[in-house]
């Protein structure tokens, strides 16, 4: 176990306050001066079931959940009881104490609640602890909670015990509690916290050597997930209309925007279904507001037809797709990157759209802003594709990162005066879709503007929007719409690339990944490099149009490239092969699709197997495809 980082896991049942407790503790660690990162694992149910949140904290910036964890706070049961009804939800056999031990690192700490677990429940824990060099801290958290408040404050007692065992002062935690609550509840929680802290210090001579390091941030930090990044990016671009239907994990963005956008003079609407949500975003955008809608897999499927309509009518549309494990309803609260192929081509016909897959909080903010700029400038749909993991990944960022100018610009909209000078047909309709202009994008007019009337239609149309099946016009209109993507490609090429290369640039062994797995791949490369491997990695976040030149440069001279992604069929590898021809000898896949994101060790293991030159398979829950040694 290293001295310089903490991976703390709080585990219990849904309804135990795991989420709020971990958020507060994470924030306290951030205020204490550390870099933090959270990973959320929860079941698709309201009460009971096994839930945990991992918090990784270090003096150095953290980009992944890390390998395993080193402190377990096991809160009671993984099931919840309704005492008044005598009902039990969940599986009584599942105790968070035992459910989590597989991933607890050697030398780790276990804090568990003797108020909930009887001696016979604990079984052979001591033997296991000796074998693994685990340090046991049995504490009656429930009794401490009961003495000052209610049973549910066991989580606060657990935080107090954690702080005592890791030598962390209570001030940042107390400060946060005082900001979050008040009155009797606050007093009770503060009493539980300090009682557990003192009790732990008095009762135990700490046998472990893990201590929370002390560090200071140079400037004030904020703790945000990618959902916040997307939401604040949208707000800073002047997004003032959001429509949606609840679906995990898209709901994160939807609820953040609901809370914020009305204060800013905008409208946030929960509507009857995702079809309505996407059509409303089109309606709002057509009328002149900056609009956003989104969903997750199944809900996004319902939006398919609308995406095509936005493309055909050249209505700006920004959409969020928060992936979860599919197909169909799949595993609602588990993560996966398996909607890439779908999102690139959702809806019938040839598509013209932009797709980003941000790899972290920072990118989610920046790329959402870019999505708005492109959608409104080039009048097409821009989709931000991320996944459940990034919704549960809270990371610290300097507050000043967000000190950026807002951009309420609606893109290519003509003023009424300009409209008067732009081409109109003989009947006076504005030729919004003319094909003989200087650019592929004509300025928009908004309903209500003088001299701007035109028809927007999902049918093929003449320059003024009237429905047309004329073959020559069809070709011109198709070419103009499809070539907009090339214009976007050029515009994006002018910008600094979001796709980052790490490692030894001359390495002939490479990793490729996209979206949320950026951080973990980068950590794996860092560690492999430290261990003497020559390796490099490219994380791609601009999925359409793809930066093909950059990827080709990266792959030039590479003998073997492992494409790391969370799905079963290697969708990104497929996209690369489609774009670049075969590449069959060079590209292979490292896949994970059990619902959990990669850990760095899993990638390191796969690289070592690949580089050993021998055959073999991974021991973990990942898949090498084709298997190492099989180059057929």
């Amino acid at each position: 176990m290293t001295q310089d980082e903490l991976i703390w896991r709080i585990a219990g049942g849904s309804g135990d306050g795991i989420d709020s407790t971990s958020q507060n503790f994470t924030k306290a660690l951030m205020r204490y001066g550390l870099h933090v990162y959270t990973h959320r694992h929860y079941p698709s149910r309201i009460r009971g079931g096994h839930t945990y949140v991992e918090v990784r904290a270090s003096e150095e910036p953290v980009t992944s959940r890390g390998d395993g964890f080193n402190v377990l706070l096991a809160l009671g049961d993984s099931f919840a009881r309704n005492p008044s009804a005598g009902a039990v939800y969940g599986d009584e056999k599942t105790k968070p104490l035992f459910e989590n031990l597989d991933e607890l690192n050697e030398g780790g700490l276990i804090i568990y609640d003797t108020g909930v677990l009887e001696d016979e429940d604990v079984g052979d824990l001591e033997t296991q602890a000796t074998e693994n060099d685990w340090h046991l801290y049995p504490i009656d958290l429930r009794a401490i909670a009961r003495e000052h408040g209610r049973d549910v404050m066991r989580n606060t007692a657990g935080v107090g015990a954690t702080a005592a065992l890791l030598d962390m002062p209570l001030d940042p935690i107390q400060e946060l509690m005082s900001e979050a609550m008040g009155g009797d509840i606050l007093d009770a929680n503060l009493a539980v916290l300090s009682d557990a802290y003192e009790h732990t210090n008095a009762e135990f001579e700490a046998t472990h050597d893990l201590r929370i390091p002390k560090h200071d941030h140079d400037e004030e930090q904020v703790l945000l997930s990618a959902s916040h990044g997307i939401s604040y990016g949208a707000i800073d671009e002047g997004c003032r209309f959001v429509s949606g239907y609840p679906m995990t994990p898209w709901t994160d963005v939807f609820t953040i925007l609901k809370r914020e956008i009305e204060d800013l003079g905008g409208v946030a609407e929960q509507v009857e279904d995702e079809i309505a949500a996407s059509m409303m975003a089109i309606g709002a955008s057509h009328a002149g507001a900056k609009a956003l809608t989104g969903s997750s897999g199944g809900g996004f499927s319902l939006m398919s037809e609308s995406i095509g309509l936005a493309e055909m009518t050249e209505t700006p549309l920004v959409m969020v797709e928060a992936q979860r494990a599919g197909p169909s309803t799949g595993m609602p609260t588990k993560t996966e990157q398996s909607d890439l192929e779908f999102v690139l081509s959702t809806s019938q016909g040839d598509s013209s759209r932009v797709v980003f897959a941000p790899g972290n909080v920072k990118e989610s903010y920046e790329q959402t802003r870019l999505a708005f700029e492109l959608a409104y400038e080039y009048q097409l749909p821009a989709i931000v594709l991320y996944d459940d993991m990034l919704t549960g990944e809270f990371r610290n960022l300097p507050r000043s990162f967000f000190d950026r100018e807002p951009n309420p610009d609606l893109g290519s909209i003509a003023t009424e005066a300009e409209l008067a000078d732009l081409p109109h047909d003989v009947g006076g309709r504005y030729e919004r879709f003319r094909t003989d202009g200087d650019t592929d994008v004509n300025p928009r007019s908004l309903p209500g503007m003088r001299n701007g009337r035109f028809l927007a239609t999902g049918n093929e149309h003449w320059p003024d929007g009237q429905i047309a099946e004329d073959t020559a016009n069809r070709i011109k209109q198709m070419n103009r719409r499809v070539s907009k993507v090339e214009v976007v490609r050029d515009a994006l090429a002018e910008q600094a690339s979001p796709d980052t290369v790490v490692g030894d640039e001359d390495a002939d062994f490479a990793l490729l990944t996209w979206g949320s797995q950026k951080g973990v791949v980068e950590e794996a490369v860092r560690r492999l490099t430290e261990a003497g491997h020559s390796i490099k990695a490219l994380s791609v976040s601009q999925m359409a149009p793809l930066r093909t030149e950059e990827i080709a440069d990266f792959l030039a001279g590479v003998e073997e490239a492992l494409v790391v992604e969370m799905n079963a069929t290697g969708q990104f590898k497929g996209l690369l092969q489609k774009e670049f021809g075969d590449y069959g000898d060079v590209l292979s896949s490292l896949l994970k699709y059990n619902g959990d994101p990669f850990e760095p060790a899993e990638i390191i293991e796969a690289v070592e197997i690949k580089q050993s030159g021998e055959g073999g398979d991974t021991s973990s829950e990942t898949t090498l495809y084709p298997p190492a040694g099989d180059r057929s």
Partner: protein
Amino acid sequence: MNQFDAIDSGEEVTSDDYTPEIEPQPTWCPGCGDYSVLKALKGAMSDLGRDPEEVLLVTGIGCSGKLNSYFDSYGFHAIHGRTLPLGRAAKMVNEDLEVVAAGGDGDGYGIGGNHFTHTARENHDMTYIVFNNEVFGLTKGQSSPTSPKGHTSKTQLKGVAKDPVRPMSLALSAGASFIARTAATNPKQAQEILVEAIEHDGFAHVDFLTQCPTWNKDGAQYVPYIDVQESDEYDFDVTDRREAAEMMHETEQALYDGKVLTGRYYVEEDRRTYQEEKQARDEMPESPVVGQYFDDEKEWERSYERLDRHT
């Protein structure tokens, strides 16, 4: 300058202002009821003095969807059944627009049934015209949600086994605040009703009976109509929900017995529109959202100032 200052120029508007110079002649079949809807809508807009550039007409798919091509305002010919969410969002961000949605009975009562229910429930301030000819026209005569039970077509060889949708009763129970039925054979009443519907503050649903001479020659819409407001036979209070419901029930049944009743069925003047409800809850600004983008005085907030809860 606000881009939308030009709305309401005060100039006189005529039906011709809504007639496109290109394609002034619709391609509907001779004798189609849709011509009447087009004429009535142009007439209503002219009566109301609405400038074509402040009107957004949203249509669905099918013969009715062609309305946009022959009506020269801002238009959005959308996708099948999805006119209402598109139109209501446009209205929510720019309440100065006159938003009219139009579609067929398959579009509105079939594929778009969910949106119909919820738009009525929310009482958005817009007008919804449903061309009800009891049949799918553009796809060549299949039975529709309002086809009578037993109606035979290429997709219903043994006759429709379902009872028809009762659109006005549906609108009433969903929460529409203005509900009327008119008929293509009754152009004067049609125009008057559309004027009232457009003027109404709230969701106005007009079930517009349109004959389809090509695919539904047996349709009851051809028989002479009775105006329930003009006839001595009917006496009910259009502001009374219960009486309106009974009258609708009778009307919707009578249609399939060959008796065409038309008129205003329900008018609720004092119900708040959805916009007003939201404004009362501070969920919506008093002035149009789109106006913000053209307001030079507006200070655009940065997220930087909203981050304190995350520190």
